[in-house]
């Protein structure tokens, strides 16, 4: 990890700033959470390029503004991949495809279906460089796979939406990409039965790396139609080809549902890309979009509890995507459902009026909120980095 001119320039600008700064990469995710009122924009798009790729050490480092696809390409050439399978939410967020940056994905800690088995983006961030609100460049972690030296600011900065520091360079753990993928498709289950099946699959010894339930209207949005008019319960296994064949057959037998289909490698990849990118969420123009994370066994109840919204389940039932009228009433219903299941929610999309009016993430208990304010103050004492992005007034 090495300083670059652009990083130094960002640090100088932050140090000199007298007004709030909108911190972003390509800006494709600025519709998530609350809007930021800022006089100036600081973008990391000038910070590009892979700075280290050591395939044999399972490590890749790149500057934060590097488009994600420019990182995925050399990884694929070496038979490796980003473990957390980060989504491209351009359909959902109405932005151009393939624009998002590595920094944006890390700053929002977005992970795809594989997260249920292999961890989130935050689990694979081994090192970070960032400009703090003081305009100082700090690093945390490094370029090795195991590191407990000092407080883990990598995890603090990952998912902090640019409010604690401007991430300038990131080192990720990567892994060999599996040779093949296969998908068990069970048509026609209701959400409750589906979650039971997904739970059985994730609790099996076969290394399930995707566990999703799509109601019929969501399944209709898949690129290839499988069982029109019916819900689909989808279970993915990724491994060497022979293992995928063995494991999907074995698991299909153990689950014991009739009418089950197993998708090939190519069909699986197309399907899971659509699921990853949330292109299967039935939504109308102008709908609000929410992401709720709960214990998987309560996913179907949470989905049912919100009248007037459509949705589907990922992560074995633990991730509920909702689209619905962008109103306080929908938001409150989702909040109540998430809360009753002991879970968490994120407002992913909505008009500014809604984004400004509601708790876009759960409010914290008072003593924790006090810690949050002090940690924000420790990283950004003047409160100039993306003020109000996560919590109003912070």
């Amino acid at each position, binding site marked *: 990890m090495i300083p670059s001119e652009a990083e130094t320039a960002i640090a100088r600008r932050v140090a000199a700033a007298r007004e709030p700064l909108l911190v972003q990469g390509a800006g494709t995710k600025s519709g998530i959470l609350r809007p930021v009122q800022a006089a100036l924009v600081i973008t990391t798009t000038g910070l590009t390029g892979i700075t280290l790729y050591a395939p*044999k*050490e399972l490590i890749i480092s790149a500057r934060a503004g590097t488009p994600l696809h420019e990182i995925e390409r050399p990884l694929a050439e070496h038979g490796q991949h980003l473990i957390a399978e980060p989504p491209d939410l351009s359909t959902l967020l109405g932005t151009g495809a393939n624009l998002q940056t590595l920094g944006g994905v890390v700053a929002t*800690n977005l992970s795809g279906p594989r997260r249920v088995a292999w*961890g*989130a983006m*935050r*689990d694979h961030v081994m090192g970070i460089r960032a400009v*703090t609100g003081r305009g*100082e460049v*700090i690093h945390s*972690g*490094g370029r*090795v*796979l*195991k*590191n*407990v*030296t*000092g*407080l*883990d*600011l*990598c*995890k*603090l900065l*990952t*998912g902090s939406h640019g409010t*604690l520091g401007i991430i300038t360079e990131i080192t990720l753990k990567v892994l*060999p*990409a599996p*040779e093949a993928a296969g998908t068990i498709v069970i048509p026609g289950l209701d959400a409750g039965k589906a979650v*039971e099946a997904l*739970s059985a699959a*994730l*609790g099996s*010894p076969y*290394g399930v790396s995707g566990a999703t339930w799509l109601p019929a209207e969501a399944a209709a949005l898949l690129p290839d139609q499988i069982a029109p008019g019916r819900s689909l319960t989808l279970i993915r296994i990724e491994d*060497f080809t*022979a*293992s995928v064949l063995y494991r999907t057959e074995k698991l299909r037998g153990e689950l014991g549902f009739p009418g089950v289909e197993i998708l090939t490698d190519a069909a699986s990849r197309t399907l899971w890309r659509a699921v990853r990118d949330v292109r299967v969420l039935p939504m109308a123009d102008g709908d609000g979009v929410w992401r709720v*994370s709960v*214990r*998987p066994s309560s996913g179907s109840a949470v989905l049912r509890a919100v009248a007037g919204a459509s949705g589907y389940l990922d*992560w074995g039932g*633990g*991730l509920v995507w909702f689209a619905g009228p962008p109103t306080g009433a929908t938001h409150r219903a989702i909040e109540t459902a998430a809360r009753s299941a*002991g879970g*968490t*929610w*994120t407002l992913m999309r909505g008009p500014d009026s809604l984004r400004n009016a509601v708790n876009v993430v*759960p409010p*914290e*208990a008072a*003593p*924790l909120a006090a*810690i949050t304010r*002090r940690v924000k*103050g*420790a990283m950004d004492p003047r409160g100039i980095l993306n003020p109000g992005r*996560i919590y109003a007034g912070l």
Partner: protein
Amino acid sequence: MITLPDPKTDVMARRDAVIAGLRAAVADEEGVIADPISLKPYETDGLSAYRQMPLAVALPETTEEVAAIMRFCHANGVRVVPRGAGTSLSGGALPMADAVVVGLMRMNQILDINYPDRCATVQAGVTNIGITNAVSDAGFFYAPDPSSQLACMIGGNVNMNSGGAHCLKYGVTANNLLGLKIVTVDGEILDIGGEHLDAAGYDWLGLLTGSEGQLALVTEITVRILRSPEGARAMLAGFSSNEIAGACVDSIISSGIIPVALEFMDRPAIHACEAFAHAGYPLDAEAMLIIEVEGSVAEQDDLLARLTAICEQHHPISMKVSQSAEESLAIWKGRKGAFGAIGRISPDYLCMDGVIPTSKLPDVLRRIQEMSDSYGLKVANIFHAGDGNLHPLIMFDANDPSSFHRAETFGADILKLCVEVGGCLTGEHGVGVEKRDLMPFQFAEHELEQQRRIKSAFDPDWLLNPSKVFPLRDPLALPRAA
């Protein structure tokens, strides 16, 4: 030698009042220890070269008791040292003369096992192996497996972000947690996360994990439990040089196989372990790999055949593929008994814990051998080759103060070397007191200052686990959160 700051004389003078305050906070009369003989076991941890009697020990049985202790200590300016099983190899639980040790070993209950959601909630004093034992009948396990897993407690694992031999596939503690119950320095009880993934807001779970007791006390933990694979089997391969074994590791990683474990031992480690465990290790090898794979028997056969072919390209001088679970156990027996094995050769040793880019291994081992010669101390190296975590075991004689001093300096030199080649000071043991004064080799002063400010945001008066992690300054507790 590590220096500790002077104890707070006012707290020392109020010792009786502090003990009375602790007794009011803990229901069980035996839950507060004040007499010197009973305090003795708490004077040190796994880094037994350092000893310091604490002011008192409190052994709470509930989170509420922990909160009451913290409210009292906070109100009275008393420092607190959290302790699990006391197995820290970095002195993470070393007391101070003016500090109360809060031992969480009585909080040893498994509170909930939830198979449909693949998680378990346990108190901080449950042992690491205790979690796996509680779920193994149902075919599940808790993945991180530090060498001390029979004794070490999950609360300590969380505080040190412990690893183990199987991290390459399953990750370290931080990757296997869902939620925590913590007690803040002023005695507030807070829930972090829960039974779900990726709580919104800042990643407190990630920040607290590995924070070495600097930010809060952890009393309950919700961990992910995983279904055990159908089976696992190991193989070993001996090579005529560290370089060749290192090249073989590269080839394995490049092959697309993710072994569940990939362990490297150098010649002194092989000899020590073989003499101890009679595991059939190749005594003529300079370096040896233990490679473990998982899956059905047919999948194991396939993976082991691929690995055998890879190893053969590097001309091993011996190779043994286990044919059964029993043979795998025998292969692991030597590696798992490594600490005992070294202990038989040398009554005293320091177990170091650096991390290096795996490509630097041959070079680093050569330089460690040069240091070994110049310090006149033997060293054996065990290496988690998949993730670059190097454990040099430096042998010394504790009865000879100069020998101990040389061992410490030797260890520090190794860790500085790890940083120099692009690695870090500690991969899984934590900084503790042991590596505290080496922190400036890895972090610039303004970076340490930034970490100190985070510490201050949680613990403004610096009462939690004092004199660890951050190099001492005078006065001890200056930085403010904002």
